[in-house]
């Protein structure tokens, strides 16, 4: 019985690049990884948005123009699956954004947890705490 913790750090805006979305889909894959592991073994995925990456968390993204799912909907899916989603407070402030501007909950999907707007210091702690880092 062992747990490996992964930290997914999203540093860039999305849409034009698929990277932030791949960060989320890979993190979500932590929920189906058991088929490869022994009973009781786990891989956990924490997700943090820092720098320009916080722009991925903007509310009200419209999927219809590109006919593609949005990073907003992937963040909501992550919350539904109880992944730990952190958004850097200082970076939101730098862009003049508040909690009201970003995706915090996925109530409409029945998610129990919320994304957390936290000081960078907490993201740093997460980065210290995980076994491996994946920067996107």
């Amino acid at each position, binding site marked *: 019985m062992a747990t490996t913790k992964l930290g997914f750090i999203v540093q860039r*805006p999305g849409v*034009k690049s698929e990277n932030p979305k791949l960060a989320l889909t890979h993190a979500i894959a932590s929920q189906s990884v058991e088929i490869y592991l022994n009973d009781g073994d786990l891989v956990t995925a924490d997700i943090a948005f820092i720098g320009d990456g916080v722009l991925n968390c903007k509310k009200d993204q419209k999927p219809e123009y590109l006919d593609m799912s949005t990073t907003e909907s992937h963040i909501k899916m992550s919350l539904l699956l109880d992944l730990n989603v952190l958004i850097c407070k200082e970076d939101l402030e730098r862009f003049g954004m508040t909690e009201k501007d970003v995706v915090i909950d996925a109530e409409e999907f029945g998610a129990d947890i919320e994304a957390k707007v936290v000081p960078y210091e907490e993201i740093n702690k997460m980065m210290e705490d995980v076994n491996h880092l994946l920067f996107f």
Partner: protein
Amino acid sequence: MKLAAFVSDYRNTVDTLDRLKPEKLGIILIQNGVYHATTKEKGNASPVLGYSADYYVLQEDLETRGYTSADVGDNIKVITVSDVVDLLFNDYDKSAWL
């Protein structure tokens, strides 16, 4: 020349805009370039808005990212892809994708 310059990134890796000196310059903000129109940093507007140019921003790229025309200053014209065609054919004679 009359030059239409497309800016499609938020962090530009080239400083070409600083040197271009056309008779008429249009800056078209598309894709992640729309953040120059919507987003201030520490209260300051993006330096990309500081040129002597006509500014345009693509509406669908705004909305895809969670913004609307209301998030954009009056000095920037919100346009459609169809408008881009007219700008290219009628208002500018050369284009630069930076």
